[in-house]
C-alpha cells in the first residue's frame, strides 16, 4: 500500500467527494418537472445519487490503497468485505450504461473485437468497457480479483473467465448447484466448503488476515440491510403504493453493490422512514393508482422512464417485481452462528438458481399479497435463466389466477433490440384487457 495513494484517497474521501457531490447537487438544483401522473418524488432519490456517485468517484483513487474486486450481483460479497476489497459490480455499471442509452455503443466495441451479438448485453457492455476504458462513471479501477457465482447464471462464469484471461488476474468462482427440487445436504456442504476454501486465496490477494468476528459483523449488517430492503418492498402492499417498481429498480443499487457496508445499511433506514411516512400519509407514487401490476425479469434500463410514464398515465402502478425481491427473498436463511452453511442456503436458493415451480409459487404469492391486477413479463434475450420458462409461467398464472398478462420481447441494456411499434401495440392491448377485466 503506497502512503501517497492512501493520502490521496483520504483527501478525496474527506474533501474531494463532498466537494464533487456538492457541485453535482448545484448543477441539479433546478429539479426536472414531474409529470402530473406521478405523485411527489422520493426525497431519498437525492441520497441515492450521492452514495452511488461517491462510490464510483472514490473508486478512481482506490488503486494502491485497497484491492479492487469485480463482483457479480449474486456472489456472497460479505466474505470479500472481511478483506476490505473495494467492490465494483459490472452488472450495475452495465445497467448504468444501459440507462444512459449508451448500451449499443459499448456492445459494439465488444462485438467488433469478436464477441457475438447473441451474448448477454451486460457482458458485452462490460467487455466493451474493459477493451476501451470508456465509462459514464468517469473512470473505473482495474480489478485485482474477479469474484463470480453462477447462482444468477452460468453466463457470468464465461464472462468473468474472459476478463480474467484478458487482464491476467485471479478469478474466484462460487459454484452454486441449481436447485431442481430442494437443496441437498451435499449441495449445502459443497458451497459451505467452497467459501472456506476461498479464505487463503483472499488473504493472499488482499494481503490481509481473515478475522471471524469482523466477518460476522459484516454478515449481521448485510442481513439487517436485506431485511430492511424486504420491509421497504413490503410497504408497497399499501394502497396506494408509496413507490413504483421503477423507483425500486434504482433504489436496488445499494443492496446489490454496497451490501455489507454501513452506507447501505444507513441508506435503507432513511428510505424506510420515508416510505413509511408516505404510507401513513396516503401518498402514492402515482397520483391516481387504480391498477396494480407485477413486473417479471430485469428492467429494460433504457426505457424505464418511458414505461414508468406510460403506465402512470394509465393509472397503473407496478407494486412488486420478482427482480427487486431477489435481494430480500432468502435473507431469512442467514445465521451468524452458522455462517458458512447459512450462506450456502441464502446464496444457493435465490430465484434464478431455483426451479420454476418455486418461481411460479412465489409469483402467485406476490400477486395475491400485493393485490396485483395484471402482469408484465420482460422476455430478455440477455438472460436465459430469467426468460426460459416465462411462456409457461404466464400460461399457468393466467389460468390459475385469471390475470391479464403481457410479454415484452426486449433486452436489458442493448437498446437496438427495442421495437417501439411492436411493444406499443402489445402494451395498448394489455391495458385495454386490464381495464376491461377490472372495471369491465
Amino acid at each position, binding site marked *: 500500500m503506497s502512503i501517497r495513494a492512501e493520502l490521496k484517497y483520504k483527501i478525496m474521501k474527506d474533501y474531494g467527494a463532498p466537494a464533487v457531490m456538492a457541485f453535482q447537487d448545484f448543477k441539479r438544483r433546478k429539479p426536472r418537472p414531474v409529470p402530473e401522473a406521478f405523485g411527489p418524488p422520493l426525497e431519498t432519490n437525492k441520497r441515492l445519487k450521492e452514495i452511488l456517485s461517491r462510490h464510483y468517484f472514490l473508486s478512481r483513487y482506490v488503486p494502491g490503497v485497497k484491492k479492487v474486486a469485480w463482483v457479480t450481483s449474486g456472489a456472497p460479497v460479505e466474505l470479500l468485505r472481511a478483506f476490505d476489497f473495494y467492490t465494483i459490480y459490472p452488472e450495475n455499471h452495465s445497467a448504468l450504461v444501459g440507462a444512459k442509452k449508451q448500451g449499443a455503443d459499448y456492445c459494439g466495441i465488444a462485438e467488433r*473485437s*469478436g*464477441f*457475438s451479438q*447473441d*451474448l*448477454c448485453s451486460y*457482458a458485452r457492455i462490460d467487455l466493451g468497457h474493459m477493451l476501451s476504458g470508456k465509462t459514464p462513471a468517469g473512470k473505473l479501477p482495474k480489478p485485482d480479483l474477479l469474484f463470480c457465482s*453462477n447462482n444468477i*447464471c*452460468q*453466463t457470468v*462464469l*464465461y*464472462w468473468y*473467465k*474472459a476478463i*480474467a*484471461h484478458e487482464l491476467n488476474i485471479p478469478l474466484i*468462482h462460487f*459454484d452454486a*448447484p*441449481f436447485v*431442481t427440487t430442494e437443496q*441437498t445436504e*451435499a*449441495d449445502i*456442504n*459443497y458451497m459451505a*466448503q*467452497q467459501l472456506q*476454501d476461498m479464505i487463503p486465496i483472499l488473504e493472499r490477494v488482499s494481503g490481509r488476515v481473515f478475522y471471524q468476528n469482523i466477518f460476522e459483523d459484516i454478515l449481521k449488517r448485510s442481513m439487517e440491510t436485506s431485511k430492511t430492503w424486504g420491509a421497504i418492498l413490503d410497504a408497497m402492499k399499501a394502497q396506494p403504493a408509496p413507490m413504483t417498481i421503477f423507483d425500486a429498480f434504482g433504489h436496488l443499487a445499494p443492496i446489490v453493490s454496497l451490501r455489507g457496508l454501513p452506507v447501505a445499511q444507513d441508506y435503507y433506514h432513511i428510505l424506510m422512514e420515508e416510505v413509511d411516512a408516505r404510507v401513513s400519509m396516503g401518498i402514492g407514487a402515482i397520483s391516481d393508482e387504480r391498477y396494480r401490476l407485477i413486473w417479471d425479469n430485469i428492467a429494460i434500463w433504457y426505457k424505464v422512464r418511458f414505461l414508468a410514464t406510460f403506465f402512470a398515465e394509465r393509472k397503473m402502478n407496478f407494486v412488486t417485481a420478482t427482480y427487486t425481491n431477489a435481494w430480500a427473498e432468502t435473507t431469512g436463511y442467514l445465521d451468524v452462528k452458522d455462517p458458512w452453511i447459512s450462506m450456502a442456503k441464502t446464496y444457493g436458493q435465490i430465484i434464478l438458481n431455483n*426451479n*420454476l*415451480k418455486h418461481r*411460479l409459487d412465489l409469483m402467485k404469492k406476490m400477486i395475491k399479497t400485493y393485490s396485483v391486477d395484471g402482469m408484465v413479463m420482460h*422476455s430478455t*434475450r440477455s438472460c*436465459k*435463466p430469467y*426468460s*426460459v*420458462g*416465462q*411462456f*409457461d*409461467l404466464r*400460461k*399457468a398464472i393466467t389460468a390459475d389466477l385469471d390475470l391479464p398478462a403481457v410479454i415484452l*420481447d426486449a433486452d436489458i441494456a442493448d437498446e437496438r433490440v427495442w421495437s417501439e411499434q411492436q411493444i406499443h401495440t402489445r402494451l395498448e392491448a394489455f391495458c385495454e384487457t386490464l381495464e376491461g377485466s377490472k372495471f369491465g
Partner: protein
Amino acid sequence: MMIPDRSEYLKGLAQTGQKIMGVLPALYPRELLWAFDIHAAEIWDPPGEILHANAHLQTTICPIVKKSLEFILKDPDIINAGYLFPHTCDSLQNLGTQVKDLIGVSLPVYTFYNPKGSFNNTTIKYYRDILQNFQLTLETIYRPLDPEKLLTACELSHKIDSHLLAIHQARMTNHLSLSNEEYFKLMRAQEYLLPADYLNLLEQVDILDQPGESLKTRLMVSGILPPTSKILEFLDELGVSIVADDLLAGSRRIPKFSMDAPSSPIDYLTDRFFVLPPCSTRGGDLDERMHHISTRMKDSRAQGMLFDMVKFCEPELFDHRLLVKTLREKSIPVLTLETELEHHISGQDKTRIEAFTELLFDMVST
C-alpha cells in the same frame, strides 16, 4: 461396417421391453444407468421441424434446446423410462424444470448437476456425493443397485473409451480410412446404441497398419455437434479430412488419456469426469482449453480450424473469440460457421467453405 439407423434401432429396442431414458446433452454417468438396465438414448438434434416448442420457448433460444423440447412434446414411444437433464447450460437447466414443473410429461424427469469452474478436492468430493445421490434416486424408483452390475458397466465404459481413444489417435495419424461422414456417424452411434452393440461396432473398425493417403487437407473442428452430414459430405467432395475434433458431442466426452481399468466404480466415475478434456460448458480455464486444442492440432497436423457454432450457444460463443484470436496469432486459418442444425447447406456457407479449403490447399502446396 453397418451402423443401424437411430430411429429404427431405438424402436426395435423399445419393442423388446428395454427401458430407455431420453438424455439431453451432455455429461452424465451413463454407467449408473446401464447398471440399472436403463439404456440412455441421447437427444441432441432430433430431426423434424420446430413447431410446438415455439409456444414454449423464445426465438433466441438455441436450436438444440428447441429441438429437444419438440421431441419431448411428441411423447415418443421409444422413450419409456423418463428424461434426464444433465446440467450443461442455463437454457438446458431451465428447460429441465420447465418440462418437469410447468409443461408436465407423463414420464419422470431427472436432473444431474455437473460442477462448474476450476476443480479441486472440494469439487471431487461433491461429485462423488452427487453420483451417490443419483444412484439413490434410481434405487428408489427401480431396485437396490447391484455393485457387480455397476462394475461391469464401468468396465464396458472403459473398453469403449479405450477404443475411442485408439480411433481418435488413428484418425489423427491417418490410420483410419473413413470419410468424414462415416467417421462422425460412427462417433455419434454411441448416442443411441446399447453399449455392448457400440463396443462391437468399434471393434470392427479397421485401424490401418500403415498411414493412408496424406495428400488430403487436414482440418480440426470445434463446437457442440459435428457439422451436419451435408457439410461433411461437401468436405469429403473437396478432399478435406477432419482429423481431430473439439466437440462436446465428440472428443470432449472421452477422457484425455487412457485410464486404469476400474476397480472401485464410484472412484472410476469420479476420476473419469475430472480427466475429460476442457470444455466451455464446464467453465474451465481458457488457457487450458487453448493449450488442449493447440496440442490436438499439432498432434493431428491439422492445417486449419472450423468452428461450427450452434446459434445462441453462450458457453461456446464466449470462448470462441479468444480461441479464434489465439489461432490467428499462430497463423492458423480459421473458419466460423453458424448453424441452426438445418439439414441443408446454404450457398453462402458452401462458398465460404470452398474459399477456406482453397486457402488450406494453397498452404499445403507451398
